[in-house]
């Protein structure tokens, strides 16, 4: 290859490579924190492309969106502008696991986000393929594009999604490609390998898109959106949304579908062993489901709209790597899809990722200063997971440049903290998806209190606007006032009150109780106790919910707070990132190796590394005490 002639394209504070969900949050965060930022993308038409599915949110993921919003990120605001169906999942369960999940208008989501980026102060966006990252003396210096532009930068954030050496698989056919017909990014991978990076393959997939008019909806079950629309962004709380919601539809596979798949299994590259990349267990292809759960007679298939301006429909539950010909045959056997017309086939895509244990909890590379990684390149999966990492990377790139303390969220503070801690401490063997069960402090990390947990932090960082901050202060005030008030409102054991209680399916009282105590009863709630509380003012839904949750689950939340206190003790015991653990005597061999590889930043993080036993943690504590005393003597 001919030597590339480069030219000086200018100097910025932060370069963000990639304009997916991670790249966009990273670029917005750093430019909003006052950093001169440029975001480089393979195509300006694929900014926040929803290539995998047209949904935002869901269990765990919805929590992430709320947290990104509470910290001043963009995802929630953008989806609130562009959703076409909204549902709150898990409402029959506890408030901690209520999860908002919406259908996005794919094109509108892209257009609205692009507008935000184009109008953001300090931010430039440009179409370019980055082919190399310049690193000197263990510090990042800039990037070079395919057309020879050399951008000098103080920090670089790599958020390459599925583009790095992307390879698409459809049956026996496979070719080098980015997602959804985009170009792949091959040269950057080669250059990263030359620099000594270890890249590994991961895989993900998406079902076919089919024409709306070719579907027989009469054979399917309609799934409308909720009557009451609850927005994602805390800034939109209490606002009325006039959205004409588009329904989804539920249908099922038939035995015929299963037969076709079984007969053609050998033509799937997954089963023929031609894909080395590891796919996520929670996004199995339809082939996987039929092989692994052979007894199941039918599988659910959801038909979801891709937007208001297109007739393309997403066939959730039918992602596949079978040949196009087989896909078409098989889809036709799904109830209601007898005359289905394909617009895009299902495919799997394989791409390069890094082992995220080489990162700090700030998303920065352990050894290369100011080089950050976010999103799928770190082995995660999902728009929301990517966005959360992008936000944290953007924040820390800015903080590094500004010489400020790094920003790390721990597992007791946010799902974002759980996500990043899991990735950098344990690594991941499959694309990592957020689930509420990964959060051990699930009861306190609710989506309804993400602002109470995080907005002050975002404000201190300079990401949260005055408007948002003031809204939070007002919410806090109202919640606390109402909690206090309810503790004082007495309900006397009069005949009338006891009759009302019985009518509500509750038990009578003999002594005066407070409304607060009544709300705590499982069969009662904030709304139903209003008859005992004539002075009650009309409060926003968010406030009412917050008050009710804090009263009802006080006991459980208190228990969790005690655990969090314990957890924080070990988190506060800091460890140096450049420490050589072989200098400590008494560690087990396995612990020694793992500690030297992962380089935890606290004893708490060390305790979560598999192979590090409680005894090893004691040894670390003793070592730290030894060091503290020695340091004290030296002073």
């Amino acid at each position, binding site marked *: 290859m001919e030597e590339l002639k480069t030219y000086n394209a200018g100097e910025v504070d932060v370069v963000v490579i990639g304009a997916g969900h991670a790249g966009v949050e990273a670029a917005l965060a750093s430019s909003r924190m006052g950093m001169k930022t440029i975001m480089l993308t393979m195509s300006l038409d694929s900014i926040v492309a929803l290539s995998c599915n047209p949904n935002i949110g869901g269990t765990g993921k919805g929590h992430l969106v709320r947290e990104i919003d509470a910290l001043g990120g963009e995802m929630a605001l953008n989806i609130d502008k562009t959703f076409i169906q909204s549902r709150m999942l898990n409402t029959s369960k506890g408030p901690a696991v209520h999860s908002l999940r919406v259908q996005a208008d794919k094109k509108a989501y892209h257009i609205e986000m692009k507008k935000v980026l184009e109008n953001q102060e300090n931010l430039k966006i440009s179409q370019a393929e980055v082919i190399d990252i310049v690193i000197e003396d263990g510090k990042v210096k800039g990037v070079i594009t395919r057309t020879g532009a050399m951008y000098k930068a103080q920090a670089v954030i790599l958020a390459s999604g599925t583009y790095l050496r992307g390879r698409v698989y459809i049956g026996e056919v496979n070719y080098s490609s980015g997602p959804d017909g985009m170009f792949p990014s091959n040269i950057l991978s080669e250059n990263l390998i030359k620099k000594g990076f270890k890249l590994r393959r991961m895989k993900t997939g998406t079902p076919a898109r089919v024409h709306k008019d070719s579907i027989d909806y009469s054979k399917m079950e309609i799934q409308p959106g909720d009557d009451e629309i609850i927005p994602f962004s805390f800034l939109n709380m209490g606002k009325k949304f006039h959205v004409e919601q588009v329904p989804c539809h539920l249908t099922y596979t038939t035995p015929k579908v299963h037969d076709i798949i079984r007969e053609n299994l050998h033509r799937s590259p997954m089963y023929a062993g031609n894909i080395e990349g590891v796919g996520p*267990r*929670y996004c199995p292809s339809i082939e996987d489901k039929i092989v692994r759960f052979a007894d199941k007679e039918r599988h659910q298939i959801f038909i979801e709209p891709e937007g208001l301006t297109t007739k393309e429909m997403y066939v*959730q539950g039918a*992602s596949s790597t079978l040949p196009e010909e087989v896909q078409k045959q098989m889809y036709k056997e799904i109830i209601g899809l007898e005359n289905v017309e394909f617009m895009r086939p299902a495919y799997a895509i394989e791409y390069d990722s890094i082992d995220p244990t080489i990162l700090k909890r700030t998303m920065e590379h352990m050894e290369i200063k100011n080089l950050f990684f976010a999103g799928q390149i770190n082995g995660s999966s999902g728009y929301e997971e990517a966005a959360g990492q992008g936000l944290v990377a953007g924040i820390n790139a800015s903080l590094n440049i500004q010489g400020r303390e790094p920003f790390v969220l721990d597992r007791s503070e946010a799902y974002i903290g759980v996500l990043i801690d899991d990735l950098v401490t344990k690594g991941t063997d499959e694309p990592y998806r957020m689930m509420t069960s990964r959060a051990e402090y699930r009861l306190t990390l609710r989506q309804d209190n993400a602002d109470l947990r995080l907005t002050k932090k975002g404000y201190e960082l300079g990401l949260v606007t005055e408007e948002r901050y003031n809204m939070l202060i007002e919410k806090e005030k109202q919640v606390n006032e109402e909690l206090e008030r309810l503790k004082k409102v007495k309900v006397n054991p009069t005949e009338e009150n006891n009759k009302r209680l019985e009518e509500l399916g509750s038990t009578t009282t003999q002594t005066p109780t407070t409304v607060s105590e009544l709300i705590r009863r499982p069969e009662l709630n904030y709304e139903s106790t209003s008859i005992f509380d004539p002075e009650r003012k009309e409060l926003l839904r968010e406030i009412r919910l917050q008050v009710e949750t804090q009263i009802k689950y006080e006991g459980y939340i208190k228990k969790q707070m005690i655990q969090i206190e314990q957890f924080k003790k070990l988190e506060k015991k800091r460890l140096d990132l450049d420490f050589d653990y072989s200098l400590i005597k008494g560690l087990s061999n396995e612990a020694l190796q793992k500690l030297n590889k992962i380089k935890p930043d606290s004893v708490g993080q060390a305790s979560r590394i598999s192979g590090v036993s409680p005894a090893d943690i004691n040894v670390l504590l*003793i070592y730290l005490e030894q060091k503290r005393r020695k340091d004290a003597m030296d002073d």
Partner: protein
Amino acid sequence: MLDTIAAISTAVGEAGIGIVRMSGKGAINIGEEVFIGFDDKKIMEIQNKRLTYGHIIDENGTKIDEVLIAFMKGPYTYTREDMVEIYCHGGIISVRKVLELLIRSGARLSERGEFTKRAFLNGRLDLSQAEAVIDIIRSKTDKSFEVSFDQLEGSLSKEIREIRNILLSMVAHVEVSIDFPEEDVNELTYESLKTDAQLAEKKIDDLLSTANKGKILKDGINTVILGKPNVGKSSLLNAILKENRAIVTDVPGTTRDIIEEYVNIDGIPLKIVDTAGIRATEDIVEKIGVDRARESLENADLIIGVFDVSRDFTEEDKEIINLLKNKKSIVLLNKIDIESSFKDKFLKELEGINHIIETSIIENVGVKTLEEDIKDLFYEGDLNIESDVVITNIRHKTQLEKAKKNIQSAIRDIDMDVPLDCIEIDLKNAWEDLGEISGETIAEDILDKIFKDFCIGK
């Protein structure tokens, strides 16, 4: 000050005194709660660092032991925290009961070397002692791990694993219905959750009741009965137990697996292991027994070698004698009631072994002598019990009780229709409590279970 820890700080034996101590913020309070003075009255004012005579009483006011107690206020103590030392009568029963009472009253069983660790972290020990502290933590931990693993061989570990599986299935099902609400999976009902929770609770109760009878508390002198097939090993065990536990037949090789029994010979606890006959075998079932026999030999404190002197001396006998020679052992020359005798031949080979008893187990001849011999060995100090073992047992019991509490709390919540995510906390805690017994507490297990059992995902 940190939370209150408690431990037995003397070697556990039948003689002398045993010391149980506590350290931490609740030590003095707990001490006051469980102690009454010589006049059976609560003490008005504790005397700092003075020995006080009295009794330890349990929750019902029953006297557990006559003791001397010392209250020591921090920071001038070993750990620099408030400490209490209780001087009990020696012997396992007394110290164990006192320790269990302290734990029920709010103390936590200390980790290995935790008193020393606290002493160091609180500045009581010199910097130069840091490495020694690490050594203590390390060696004790590794050892205790061995001990607990050893204990978990066999039925206890099987049962704990079963209970954990029940809990894991419940947790996985709860998690699936929370994290994948739109999936087409079997609906989770509160009724089925309750049934499973009650089953788990019952199984724990069963284990705990055996624990209280001292059956899973394997804190006896590890005694192995060793001999060729059909020399009378099972008969010996039966004679000692005076009950028919092991199968006794004339067909060699019928004691296929290891049989473990617990007996008390005048206050000396023995854990007796009856091995399958030691000999090379092709039979797979029997082979397992033989392999395990060799394994239990390595952990044995005492070996009782049984030989049939009515049959000629063989290579196998020779091999068994070799196994005996490096251990504390007692030899029984059995079947002396039968005419043909190769006794002299055996005696010649057994040169160097001190304790040899002639028996006819069937006729109950010599069994009493054997018991006397065991007692002598014990009181002469040739045999003792690892206190680690006692501790491990209390730990197991504590964990079982914790798990039970958590399951009960889950059942209460189920009855009250509390949301699933709250119920899940108790179930998961119970699962983890049991995992601490077997050293298996990995969150990944739950995800694996979810993806193994449920067809989920887009």
